[in-house]
């Protein structure tokens, strides 16, 4: 190509494109459970894990100390992970390669702008066969995919938590059937 006639560099503004195809939203299928203590959290996480073996997207809402990472830890352990489940707050995402499942555990608390998800290569994480647990998903909107399950943890006492689970896809509804 002769000098001076180089093709202009094309920059694609990803930000304006909706990345993920919206899954069909379902009419609300939800479930509420009182978790008396950490053992109850472990039990419910273990039951839900059975529905996560083929992947999926779980949102985890709740204040600091509500138990989002604790819930994730028990879910990962039920799926066969041995070893620690560290808080992903600093790294934003921790990955776990299990025998037959790739799990990504996100914490978007430190995200200042959803655009930062592009700098971390967010598109590579959300494949249908991956299991993605997302803490503080509200900080990543509107760039995150619709979750199969939306979980909200509320502190009700020093030990007890209230868990509200909402299924937003057919896959999520199937997961929810395991505990209802």
């Amino acid at each position, binding site marked *: 190509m002769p000098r001076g006639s180089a093709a202009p560099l094309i920059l694609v503004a990803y930000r304006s494109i909706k990345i993920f195809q919206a899954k069909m939203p379902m009419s609300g299928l939800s479930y509420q459970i009182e978790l008396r203590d950490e053992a109850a959290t472990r039990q419910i996480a273990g039951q839900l894990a059975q529905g996560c073996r083929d992947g999926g997207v779980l949102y985890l809402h709740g204040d600091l*100390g509500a138990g989002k990472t604790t819930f994730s830890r028990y879910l990962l352990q039920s799926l066969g992970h041995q070893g*620690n489940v*560290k808080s992903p707050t*600093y*790294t934003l*995402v921790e990955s776990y390669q299990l025998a037959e499942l790739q799990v990504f555990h996100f914490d978007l*608390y430190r995200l200042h702008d959803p*655009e*930062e998800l592009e700098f971390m290569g967010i598109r590579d994480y959300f494949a249908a066969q991956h299991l993605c647990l997302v803490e503080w998903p509200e900080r990543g909107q509107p760039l995150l995919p619709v979750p199969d399950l939306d979980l909200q943890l509320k502190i009700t006492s*020093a030990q007890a938590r209230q868990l509200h689970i909402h299924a937003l896809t057919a896959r999520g509804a199937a997961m929810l059937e395991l505990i209802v």
Partner: protein
Amino acid sequence: MRVLGIETSCDETGIAIFDTEKGLMSHIVYSQIPIHADYGGVVPELASRDHIRKTLPLVKQALAEAGCGASSIDGVAYTAGPGLAGALLVGAAIGRSLAFAWGKPALAVHHMEGHLLAPMLEANAPQFPFLALLVSGGHTQLVRVDGIGRYQLLGESIDDAAGEAFDKTAKLMGLDYPGGPLLAKLATLGDAKKYPFPRPMTDRPGLDFSFSGLKTAAANVIAAEGKTPQVQADIAASFQQAVVDTLVLKCRRALKETGLKRLVVAGGVSANQSLRLQLADLMQSMKGEVFYPGKEFCTDNGAMIAYAGWQRLRAGQAQDLSIGVTPRWPMQQLPPV
């Protein structure tokens, strides 16, 4: 030998130049720069992990501040892990490519090795072997260091890092995130014996840490007593005492188990005054010595990467031409020098 160091593993973009004869010739961390005009307009702090727009202008600035040209650089060191894959790739791609363009060797540096060796940038540098406590917002680890690349992980946090516990407890108290340093300041006004916060995992053998329960304990106190200034100060003091006691107890245990007499403490939390006072007492009682990096090298920076890279490059180690990162990278896998 003169080495350019590039750090982009998480939030900070850090660039530095280290020279065998002259020592540290320049070092810049992007967040220290008040005027962002050289960076294609203002790069807002909103996109704090936008290393792409920051790295090359910072490299140019580091060269200018060192008063040297690119042709005088003998090697390029960049953080290749552990960290956020997307962030690491920026530094690795730029660092590896610059070295290729300049016809010089490149080296992939382990971020935590950078922290471990940072005290060696100081006049009073520790001799090997030593015990290292790496304690920051992202890490809490005890490492036995017998030489460069000869590391043994003795213990680490199984959940939250110590600095993370500081930041999150500060947030629960109503301080801005990350409020760890502010919490430490508040602690000087409070009663450290007011609330009996747990000292997790100190009642059993081992050198691992667990700090996630502390924020829940703090949340329970706040729920019961509110957020009056005195309650805040007392929580801050009691919380800080619990973290410091735990760190000091594990250091004592690790020093006893290994027989080591030198302790290196690095990472953002190593700036904590209460921790430094108690560690000074500990080392005095054990007839040992404690070493810290300079204040600006406690947090993420390019100088420690340039230095760690320099140590390995001058020993003849170098990367191949591929651009690779290792987001999960156990320190024990590093080759010795």
